């Protein structure tokens, strides 16, 4: 029921969310992350033209699978799906979808929020922001 995937194709949110619907559940919480056009950096507002995500694919999948196992051990959730896109993404396109199904929605919200925080901290994927006049690797939210 659980799944972790990497793709270079567009991610359809429904197809992730609807794969985690066990019969004992009544709610699925889905986090949909996407590229924002404007980023504040050193007091300036940078306009991003597009993004490039690079992954260390085998390790990224292993780290995602560890997160799913930890989420299922620590929260009362029934199913978790994570899909992360890599390669070039246009502004507004979904980079990551995390769906969590649970018998009670409170656990689904808590687990989904924990999963995206941990994914950004531990899963070896890097985001490069490309501007009209340059590019920069995004700084991680915190260190692993």
């Amino acid at each position: 029921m659980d799944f972790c995937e990497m793709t270079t194709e567009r991610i359809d949110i429904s197809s992730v969310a609807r794969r985690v619907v066990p019969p004992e559940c009544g709610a699925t919480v889905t986090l949909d992350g996407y590229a924002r056009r404007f980023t504040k950096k050193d007091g300036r507002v940078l306009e991003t033209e597009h993004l490039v995500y690079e992954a260390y694919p085998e390790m990224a999948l292993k780290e995602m699978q560890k997160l799913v196992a930890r989420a299922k051990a620590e929260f009362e959730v029934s199913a978790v799906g994570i899909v992360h896109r890599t390669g070039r993404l246009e502004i507004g396109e979904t980079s990551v979808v995390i769906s969590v199904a649970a018998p009670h929605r409170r656990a689904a919200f808590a687990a989904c929020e924990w999963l995206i925080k941990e994914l950004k901290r531990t899963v070896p994927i890097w985001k490069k922001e490309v501007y009209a006049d340059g590019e920069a690797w995004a700084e991680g939210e915190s260190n692993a």
Partner: protein
Amino acid sequence: MRIKVLFFGAAGDIVGKRDDELDVREGAAAKDVLDALAARFPKLAGHKLHIAVDQEYASPATAVHSDNEIAVFTAVSGG
């Protein structure tokens, strides 16, 4: 012994390649690999680097062997 190192993210741009070979002493630890890289690529010095051995986060003391898959990268920023 000779080891192969993979680079990802900013680390790859800084060293100008996605993998490299490096000579380290037998029984070297992850910390020795990072020190050798810092000596070879001075621009890496200003970055906090992570090292993975066989696709697992390694501590400075983790032993490395010539048949390990070793990867070095800056803080992850996916999501």
